[in-house]
């Protein structure tokens, strides 16, 4: 059965290692939905989060392939439901003065920050699960979206050794 799977990879923080990791996913045809990368807790190491539509066996195979790369320290695959995943979206939206109030309402509803505001629009920032971000973008359907930049999801696994965070605030919105 195919479902959301998260691959979490700790690797050396340089373009060559990143290219190797992405390259192996591409050439072995793994069903990648999104990739996000940034610094990890360890200096010099980056955390790469890959979302896939795949079963656990496929995820494990991807992890074993990634682990062969010199510069990849660890790779593991876990069902998306066993982790917490968040992505960030920045949206530059066109809205005439008469629609600013409506835009503000949507922003409030989704706890979206207004990073910049100009005469005929604004830049909004929202974060949450993929579904939440998509819901936010749907809520903006009536507006012209001039530019959307999404980070791709980053995720951490809920493991027994760590407390499970209860930050459902942004999810409480319908």
């Amino acid at each position: 059965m195919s479902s959301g799977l998260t691959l979490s990879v700790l690797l050396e923080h340089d373009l060559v290692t990143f290219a190797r990791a992405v390259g192996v996913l591409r050439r072995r045809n793994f069903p990648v939905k999104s990739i996000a990368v940034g610094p990890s807790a360890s200096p010099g190491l980056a955390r790469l989060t890959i979302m896939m539509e795949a079963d656990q066996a496929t995820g494990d195979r991807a992890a074993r392939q990634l682990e062969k790369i010199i510069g990849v320290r660890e790779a593991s695959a876990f069902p998306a439901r066993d982790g917490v995943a968040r992505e960030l979206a920045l949206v530059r939206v066109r809205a005439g003065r008469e629609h600013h109030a409506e835009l503000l309402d949507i922003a409030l509803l989704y706890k979206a920050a207004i990073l910049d505001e100009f005469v005929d629009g604004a830049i909004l920032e929202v974060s949450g699960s993929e579904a939440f971000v998509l819901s936010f973008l749907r809520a903006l359907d009536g507006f012209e979206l001039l530019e959307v930049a999404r980070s791709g999801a980053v995720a951490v696994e809920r493991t027994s050794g760590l407390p499970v965070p209860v930050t459902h605030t942004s999810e409480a919105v319908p």
Partner: protein
Amino acid sequence: MTELLTGAQVMCRVLLEEGVDVMFGYPGGAIMPFYHALPEFPTLRHVLVRHEQAAAHAADGYARASGRPGVCVATSGPGATNLVTGLATAMMDSAPVVAITGQVPRNMIGRDAFQETDIIGITQPITKHNVLVQDVELLASHLGEAFAIAREGRPGPVLVDVPKDVQNQKIEYEGRSRGVPVPAKRLPAAPADLREAAELIATAQRPLIMAGHGVVLAGAYEELRCLAERTGIPVITTLLGISGFPESHPLHLGMPGMHGEVHVNRAIQQADLIVGVGLRFDDRVTGNTAAFAPRAKIIHLELDPSEVGKNVPATVALLGDCRTVLRELLRAVGPRDCRAWRAEIAGLMKSRTEQYRGDLSPEGILQVLDEETEGRCTIVSDVGQHQMWVAKLYPYERPNTHITSGGLGTMGFAVPGAIGVRLARPDEPVWAISGDGGFQMNMQEMATMVQEQIPVKMAIFNNGYLGMVRQWQQFFHGRRYSATPIWSPDYVKLAEAYGVAGWRVENADQTRAAIRAAMVVPGPALVEFLIEQEANVFPMIPPGASLSEPIEGEPAPLVPA
């Protein structure tokens, strides 16, 4: 004690420290500082090839024959890109090769400088690892690590790209500093898994051992033989597993897969247990994986965890090098026999006389070759029909005496590959056997053999076709022989032009004299065999079909519509 050395001198020193005695290469602009330093190190033998592809294949052949990393050297740009096929070949067949390439100076990188190519980007998928040396301070450790990575775990090619200005930089060199060891990422075989494997081996009714390249890479010949003899389980050897188990042994069954004997493939399809030792269940071995060994549980002994479950599901995976894991397994496996099963397999055997028109058959040639070398010979084969004949018909007895490009199927491998093999085995007759297609891909290397006095003996099975492709066209493409007829030069005259002794054999009764004469001449020699033009390799599993569906004879002639 430190010395002030150039980067190029450091490279030579590291090669010495790594025990390198020979390398294969071709100079050019961006690698000139290295070549400038090389004469200061007279024990580093450099073999000048005629094309960089041959340097990579020769390094590969050297590595496979010696078990130590083979080294090839090329300049930036076209020199480096010419290595690509050789590196991909080594990657697919897990051969430890270290490739050193020159690169344009650092301040020119990224500016499309003359002979600049992103060889790190190009070779990323076909090397185990590669590195651009950005700092002369890191040169020795990068190069030392390249050898360690190439050698350790599952071997493979590593490329080190050294900008010209880094080769020229001066540095205080302290001699060998033991670099960072390559982190071991493999897990030992778990006792519970070993027990389960032993239990499966004890209770199976129809077990088979399938032995692959891992047996040769780990030198697990004795362990494999011990497992087979203790249990009576018949042994199948894959193309790269050939010569991992003596073929005269009563438990030896043969080669499986696309051109495997019918009884071998039928045995696989009826087996209830397959003990896979150091193989990756390549599609040429399994046929359609969905229909592969439908009744069998699989014990997979494998060094590379990413191979487990990649092509076929494993019931039990035992991770580690074949030698170690077989030893662990042998401690858990008790004696048994497989008499009934072996009798059943014997019942599947059919005597099949090879069908060749004319009397010069591949079988006959290989038999004479075996007799004339008294079984003491390493054969390097190329790719195609002759490769299958050599794999199936030559009686391999001694470990690691069959060297070929398996995974990538690289035509043109045999001639340069044999140069490396011969340098690794100076006391052994080395025969490069090619078809007329593959030979013409790298025949320029005869010049290398002459200049460097490397006595490789070459055999060409000349049928005037790209025979394996022609066979596929005959079987699956309505006999439309598109672009497969291939003209050849007069190989005897060509050899003569290179200063190589040559003979042409047209009839079986000329075979022995020609092989003997080629063996006797001190230098390289060539024997061309004019074989039946449209001979086919039988049996054959059509691509994508299951092992149960062999083609065993000539297809019916086409009936005009």
